[in-house]
């Protein structure tokens, strides 16, 4: 057996073993979350973190659900409309920036992209002032507005990069047939946009659901989404660990489900986030 052939046979085993080892490391926090969430109060102390529950109970889940439910509802009311509006806007913007380019479109696109990277701390203080002036501070519509506006860059980017792959000839052909911009969009572009919509809706849903910064700055107690409520529940000294862990899992279930069911699209969204990486 030559050296090369031997190496080819040994190395996959080593690689596999290393990958398994990393899987175990990655799953440590998941084990602690799950195991602790099913423990009764008497077992939910850090000293027993690594033990499985001796008595399994849903008690912590029930209490966590009661505490977190209003936040979960708010999160749904924020993330679902927010993601849909973002996708609609992004689709039209991406269409224009790929197929109906105007002089200076590149500059506009670059200026949009910068909006993707700005730390939102840099707009927060004026944003609070503006929303107070407009009397939309503290509620859900204001928060959704903020998410939609600051989501424009990434959504536009994903749709634009997707639409660039549609042959220009298709648009030209429909134009020759007398179709205007909007009709070409409806008859040529929209029917093939499914995957891009999936990517954007998933991406926005996940970011809106997981957002904490905008929510703490822009909403009041009535409108707190799950992340803010979760942070308050976990921050309270009196909250037992089992309830904290159960609440953390509850707040993560929707994005996890989306990720498991539609992971492929999630990946594509991530790739788009890296520009042309």
């Amino acid at each position, binding site marked *: 057996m030559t050296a090369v052939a031997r190496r080819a046979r040994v190395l996959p085993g080593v690689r*596999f073993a290393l*990958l398994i080892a*990393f*899987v175990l490391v*990655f*799953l*440590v*926090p998941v084990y*602690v*979350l799950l195991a602790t969430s099913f423990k009764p109060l008497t077992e939910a102390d*850090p000293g027993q*973190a690594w033990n499985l529950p001796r008595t399994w109970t849903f008690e912590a889940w029930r209490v966590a659900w009661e505490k977190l439910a209003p936040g979960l509802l708010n999160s749904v009311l924020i993330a679902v409309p927010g993601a849909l509006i973002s996708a609609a*806007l992004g689709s039209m*913007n991406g*269409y*224009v*920036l790929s197929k*109906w380019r*105007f*002089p200076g479109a*590149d500059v*506009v696109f*670059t*200026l*949009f*992209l*910068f*909006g993707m*990277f700005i*730390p939102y*701390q*840099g*707009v*927060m*203080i*004026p*944003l609070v*002032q*503006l929303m107070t002036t407009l009397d939309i501070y503290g509620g859900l519509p204001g928060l959704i507005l903020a998410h939609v*506006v*600051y989501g*424009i860059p990434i959504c536009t980017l994903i749709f634009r990069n997707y639409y660039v792959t549609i042959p220009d000839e298709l648009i030209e052909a429909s134009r020759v047939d007398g179709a205007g*911009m909007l009709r070409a969009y409806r008859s040529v572009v929209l029917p093939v946009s499914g995957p891009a919509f999936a990517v954007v809706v998933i991406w926005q849903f996940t970011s809106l*659901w*997981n957002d*904490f910064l905008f929510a703490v700055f822009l909403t009041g107690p009535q409108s707190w989404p799950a992340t803010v409520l*979760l942070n308050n529940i976990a921050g309270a000294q009196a909250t037992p660990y089992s309830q904290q862990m159960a609440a*953390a*899992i509850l707040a*993560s279930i929707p*994005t*996890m489900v*989306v*990720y*498991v069911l539609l*992971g492929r699209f999630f990946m594509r969204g991530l*790739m788009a986030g*890296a520009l*042309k*990486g």
Partner: protein
Amino acid sequence: MTRMRRWLPGLLLLSPSIAAIAIFVYGMLGWNLQVAMTDRHDEISEGRFVGLTNFVQLWDQPRWHISVEHAVVFTLVFVGGALLLGWLLAFLMERGIRGEGTFRAIYLFPMAISFVATGIVWRWLMNAGTGERAVGLNALLDGLGLGFLQWQWFRDPDWGMAAMAIPAVWQMSGYVMALFLAGFRGVPDELREAARVDGASEWKVYRHIVLPLLRPVTLSALIILGHISLKVFDLIVAVAGTQVVTDVPAVFMWVAVFDSHDPAKGATIAAYIVLSVTVFVVPYLIWSVRRERRES
């Protein structure tokens, strides 16, 4: 005139978004800068223009120095750690491996969860108790016979921020892996084969063929991780609250706005955070837009 008829509708359709970005991104950044240049150190006064005074005076505050140092340590450990681990995972899977889909899903799933939710479990895992009082990871280390590795994690006064970077690495290295994996797969097989036929060792193929082609991916990953790192807020608040021991500029800004009720100071800190991101993102954006135009 006919040419204008061609592009005007597009511009009109885009104009609401252009207006939104102009107002909410650039307008707000400018407004923030304007607040930072006033003496609005409470929530009632109008504020007079004081130029760059706040930007200079911030450096007189010990807490600002601490938070900047923390941000530097956090960024180095987080960006370095996530790049290395992500690259290693991609390297191990690059040539195809049984169960690749499952591995990828497991490494990537932390990205789908909020920093707030993961912060809760990491706060617990990184409990500072050692020796007799060891719990969490310290107890695990003890059980594995690695008790000498026990430390105070994020409560360590010198290297606490390195511990704070661990959950962030856990959360983001799967993303880096996905980026690198796409990069590896983008290297044409013929290139590798040609080098091998010329007698190059595997290491040389890697060093001279694969690595140079991974440079754009590495740059993208660097930029994305870097800008996440400089504005990190959720994770730190979820793990440690707003204590000085784990202060970073974003947390300090929060304290300035909500605890000290000092908009001018908060705006100044925010402006510094924006500046720190801008200095490397703007050249990157210009570079990538130019590169795309060259390629098309």
